């Protein structure tokens, strides 16, 4: 059975067909959750925030331009929801949930290689979770949501000069935490 394009689901939702939004949630819940998980570093809170973001997406659907792809838009909504949550909470991160940090593409034929990839991903997630929230935000928006500096400046309500500074400092801290500091900074 051919699935409906996102655009049709958006239009049906706008006409009051709530079930159509359910299909959009089914398609994007994992990527929305991953935005939240990278930003807050804690699974339970990330799942709660993903839920909040998907509800917010429904409420703001009138503002969505249906000629553009739905995925980047809802991920940006999720990033905003998480950034608001991060601004409200204590400046340090909660520990990363390692025991259930189970990547989706873990079906490597070589178990040792799969383990190595999993370890590398966990190290990177931990390093991300240890960054200050505003550094985590610029990494998320630049590297995972592919926003330009100007878009990041608008999304975070910060001057362009702050975005540039945050970004290179965030990368430097990330590299330092991953043990490549000598190479990444001058």
């Amino acid at each position: 059975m051919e699935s409906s394009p996102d655009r049709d689901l958006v239009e049906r939702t706008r006409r009051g067909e709530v079930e159509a939004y359910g299909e959009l949630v089914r398609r994007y819940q994992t990527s929305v959750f991953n935005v939240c998980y990278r930003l807050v570093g804690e699974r339970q809170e990330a799942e709660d925030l993903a839920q909040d973001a998907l509800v917010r997406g429904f409420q703001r659907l009138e503002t969505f331009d249906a000629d553009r792809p739905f995925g980047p838009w809802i991920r940006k909504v999720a990033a905003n929801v998480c950034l608001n949550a991060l601004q409200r909470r204590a400046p340090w991160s909660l520990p990363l949930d390692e025991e259930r940090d189970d990547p989706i593409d873990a079906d490597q034929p070589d178990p040792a290689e799969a383990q190595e990839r999993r370890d590398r991903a966990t190290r990177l997630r931990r390093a991300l979770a240890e960054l200050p929230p505003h550094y985590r935000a610029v990494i998320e928006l630049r590297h995972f949501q592919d926003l330009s500096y100007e878009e990041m400046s608008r999304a975070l309500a910060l001057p362009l000069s702050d975005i540039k500074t945050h970004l290179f400092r965030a990368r430097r801290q990330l590299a330092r935490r991953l043990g490549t500091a000598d190479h990444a900074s001058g």
Partner: protein
Amino acid sequence: MHLDDATLNEFLDRRLTRGSDRQARDHLKSCAACRTRLAALEDLTASLQALPEVRLTRDLVHPVLARVRRRSAPRLLTWMTALEALAGASLIATIWPRLEADLATVAALLVPPTLVPWAETLVGSWDSNWPQWLADIRVLQSAADMWLRSLTAGSAMSWPFVLTVGAAALVLGALGNGVLLRFPARRA
């Protein structure tokens, strides 16, 4: 002289102007240290892009749709608001004689002298209309009274008790709605 961090990062993100970009490329050709720093940044970017997605442990479709449906169902809220308004009006009707005297005392202290004639006109209008409003509210009260009597007929509960409990529940509901809906829980 090496490329500074800001320039190197903007080079990586292709943010430099054409002239600055050419200068950075020329420098990178002759500087092994800056090439190494750039390679580390490129590795970091590649690692971030290769970071696998993590599974959700629960399906969010049903909870999200439940919340969406709840929020797009204003009828219940309207009925609740009407009931809460009725409970509030009944309460005011009951305590009005005392409240009227107290309000007159407070108003005498608060209303500036220039506004006294205007305030007197306003209060006079309330006074002249109040008997009619009170009569309307009492019609509603007696209807509620009859309904409650029919509910409690034959049971051990007295109707004033039921009325009190019901009014308390409505007032608590109104307070709860006001607090919980307007000030969502902050996260720790």
